[in-house]
């Protein structure tokens, strides 16, 4: 074989299959070999399902040989963040409390990918219960950034982003609650899309904050994101918050032009906290887009500064509730105790890490008697204001362009203080609160050679517009030519 199959995007791999230049089994073996060789250093995977992957690949081989593929994803090796339940495959959510948990059911997205013929390579590492921005808070191991192993890959979908960036999977799924797809995508130089709330089913996604959790793709390029989003999007009767809107052909939408597109640049995102290199990268990106015929204007999102505070009430409150079920009774860890309360309290104390405990405590506190109105009630009202900011902005512009993160990937152990860690999400959190779609694409590199994320934000259900602009930008820039040196 002349080409290294693991370097290909999903669409290139699918084309190679169709042209008879490669088979799903060959690609799967190439990935399994690379994972075996390199993942001890990256730490992208918690579980590798080699045998199941080989079996799925063989089935795809047969379909492709018979020229009856299930679609463009048939035989493509993918990875799933360990937040998604997979029937018969250990699903831990990065937590000791679920160590050894084998769900008897599949997440809807896992089911849809399997139905599309995708080959699951395994489950990727993550901050415990998706709470974190560095994947240092996995109960099992940290994940490292393929561009610089001394740095974090971002989080909480750090395993997925590192796997894709390090060519350990053709693409992966992550989840975004406060930035957990876009921030690691930015740190690892991949594409990451957070869809509109309700666009992709949450069934089988282990809940962190129900009203904020969004599953979405992490890929090597924008076309792959369009492909993968198309495969997982759509109404699911098992998720009452999933929206019965038809799913457009996202791949077809890539071909449009961005001429005449009105881009808004939020002034509140360019504050002293923003790394000047990133500010410059965003300005250069605007230049590129203008060159393609788009127009740019400065806009204002006045509540930007409050998004994080809203988030740190709503997300912990919902988490404290969602995580109440881990009590040592039905599944997962049990630490013996004198009586039931003692057993449950000891189990939770041993099973949850420090960050998870902190958020459970915070969430329990803000919901407890006498505090609801001051915290949760008020946060929900400010959430309305945040949403309104975006609605008002989108009355005048088609897309918003912004940095994904205030800085590039930081070093392991660099951010010990919880609040400092939380501030990483300042540009991603408002979008989650508003439930609107956003994508992070590679927007250049820092002087130290680390990727910079460019964020595009669209109104609800305008993923096609988002992908079209991101694709045009990607085509007009040379950033994808660089790849991390892992071997």
């Amino acid at each position: 074989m002349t080409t290294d199959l693991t370097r290909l995007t999903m669409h290139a791999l699918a084309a190679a299959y169709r042209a008879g230049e490669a088979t799903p089994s060959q690609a799967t073996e190439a990935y399994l070999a690379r994972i075996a060789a390199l993942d001890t250093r990256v730490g992208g995977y918690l579980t590798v399902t080699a045998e199941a992957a080989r079996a799925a690949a063989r089935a795809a081989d047969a379909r492709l040989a018979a020229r009856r593929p299930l679609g463009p994803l048939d035989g493509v090796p993918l990875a799933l963040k360990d937040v998604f339940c997979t029937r018969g495959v250990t699903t831990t959510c990065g937590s000791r409390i679920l160590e050894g948990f084998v769900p008897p059911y599949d997440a809807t997205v896992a089911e849809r990918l399997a139905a599309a013929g995708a080959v699951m390579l395994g489950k990727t590492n993550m901050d415990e219960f998706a709470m974190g921005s560095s994947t240092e808070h996995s109960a099992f191991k940290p994940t490292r950034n393929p561009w610089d192993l001394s740095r974090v890959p971002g989080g909480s979908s750090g395993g997925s982003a590192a796997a894709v960036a390090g060519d350990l999977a053709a693409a992966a799924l992550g989840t975004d609650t406060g930035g957990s797809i876009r921030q690691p995508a930015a740190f690892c130089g991949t594409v990451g899309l957070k869809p509109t709330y309700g666009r992709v089913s949450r069934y089988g996604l282990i809940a962190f904050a129900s009203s904020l959790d969004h599953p979405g793709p992490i890929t090597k390029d924008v076309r792959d994101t369009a492909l993968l989003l198309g495969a997982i999007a759509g109404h699911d009767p098992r998720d009452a918050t999933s929206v019965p809107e038809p799913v457009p052909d996202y791949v077809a939408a890539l071909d449009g032009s961005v001429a005449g597109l009105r881009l808004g640049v939020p002034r509140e995102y360019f504050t002293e906290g923003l790394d000047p290199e990133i500010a410059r990268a965003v300005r250069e990106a605007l230049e590129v887009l203008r060159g393609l015929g788009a127009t740019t204007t400065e806009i204002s999102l006045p509540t930007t500064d409050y998004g994080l505070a809203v988030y740190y009430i709503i997300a912990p409150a919902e988490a404290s509730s969602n995580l109440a079920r881990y009590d040592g009774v039905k599944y997962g860890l049990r630490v013996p105790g004198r009586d039931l309360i003692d057993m449950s309290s000891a189990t939770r104390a041993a099973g949850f890490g420090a960050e998870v405990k902190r958020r459970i405590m915070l969430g329990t506190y803000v919901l407890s008697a006498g505090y609801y109105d001051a915290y949760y009630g008020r946060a929900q009202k400010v959430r309305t204001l945040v949403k309104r900011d975006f609605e008002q902005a989108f009355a005048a512009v088609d897309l918003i362009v912004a940095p994904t993160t205030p800085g590039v990937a930081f070093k392991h152990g660099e951010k010990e203080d919880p609040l400092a860690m939380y501030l990483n999400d300042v540009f991603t959190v408002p979008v989650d609160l508003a439930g609107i779609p956003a994508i992070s694409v590679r927007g250049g590199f820092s002087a130290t050679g680390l990727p910079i994320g460019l964020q595009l934000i669209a109104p609800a259900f305008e993923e096609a517009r988002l992908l079209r602009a991101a694709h045009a930008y990607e085509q007009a820039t040379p950033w994808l030519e660089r790849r991390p040196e892992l071997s």
Partner: protein
Amino acid sequence: MSAVATAAGYEVVIGLEVHAQLSTRTKMFCGCSTTFGAPPNTQTCPVCQGMPGTLPVINRRAIEFGTRTALAFDCTVNASCRFARKHYYYPDMPKNFQISQYEEPLAEHGGLEIDVAGGGVRRIGIQRLHLEEDVGKLVHEGTLETAPSSLVDYNRAGVPLMETVSQPELSSPEEAAAYLRAFRAVLVYLGVCDGNMEEGSLRCDANISLRRRGATELGTKVEIKNLNSFRNVQRALEFEVIRQAAALDAGERIVQETRLWDADRGYTRSMRSKEFAHDYRYFPEPDLVPLELDLAFVERARAALPELPRAGRRRFVEQYALRGAEAATLTGSRALAEYYEATVGAGAGPRPAANWILSELLRVVPGDDEQAVRDSPVSPAHLAGLIRLIDDGTISGKIAKSVFDKMAASREDAATIVGREGLTQVADSGALALVIDQVLAADPKLLADWKSGKTAAENAIVGQVMKATQGKANPALVRDLLKEKLSKT
């Protein structure tokens, strides 16, 4: 009533909170069956067992049943309502929160009419009606206090429950029991709950306080749990009235607490006092979206309402000339009311039909058990047939009762039994005249009395003839023969 006597000088204030399991086929938020009595943990799925990542989806029929009930109780169905999470840890509750309704219940501000002592009617206010999910079942190895461990069966977890909270307007244990009876009858009429208290389909908690007669502020209220039959509601509240009155008489303060009714021992006892007050941390259920039941939905539910017990009762009195108490019993369950009307529809007179059902049928069939009434061994058509045999003189009323018992045992119709067993009345005047002669010959005094025109003597002769014919003589014919005989002498 001892409770009343002991509590003289006090006014009793009771409010009831009733949890009714809705008779939907599936659970509140998942497709698992709700069939009672399945082997442990065979009616569960990842959703009702609260497994990670699973999500609830509302059962439409549960909302319809709730709406129907709300309308029957004359409640306002809220234009918008939503579910909320109620948090507390208990191992029978898989998620350690219960999906319930809190600030925005399905319906509010209704009422229910009950009969009160002395024949009056009172309307008891209903504060709110909301839907929620049931919890699983704990099996203790021994009692809760002594069990070294307990076992959990999640079959019941997620079964739809409708909670209805009355205003604290019931003024005696009897009224509380009457409320619960009327409540149950409405639910069963509506077909939204099977009303089976033994299987836990209907569960009741009570709040009770006493205050000096004439006092304006309420006394300290005590919550009593575990009242799972009409009888227990009344007994537990009677016990509590006496207990609280005695405490107040002795100058003690009533402690606000939750007490458990121990039906076997016949007393309420304090559940361990809560060193740690509950803090349920309600917030809107983020996995579900709000309900906005439009007018059309509510009107469809209203149009589908059947005739309710009290309306049926009024109609029975008017249409069939029944007494109020008779009509009340006959409309005590929908099945019984239907049974009565089917019997009348099959040709029986309204009066004999009522008499036979009230005095005979209810001996063999529990009238408040819908299913038992529907499965009655004596069908309405068979009962009407029996009444027809009496009306046309084929059998006597006395024989009819034994025929009824045989019908109940064999499910056969009356004519079959009467024909096979030769129970037809003796209507052969020759044969009867012979029997009369024998009776008179055996008792000269009776003969003399009869001849002197004593009515009592005639009755006695008829009775003896009936006895001699084992009830088969037609009593009217015996009287005719006697009259004829007297005129000839």
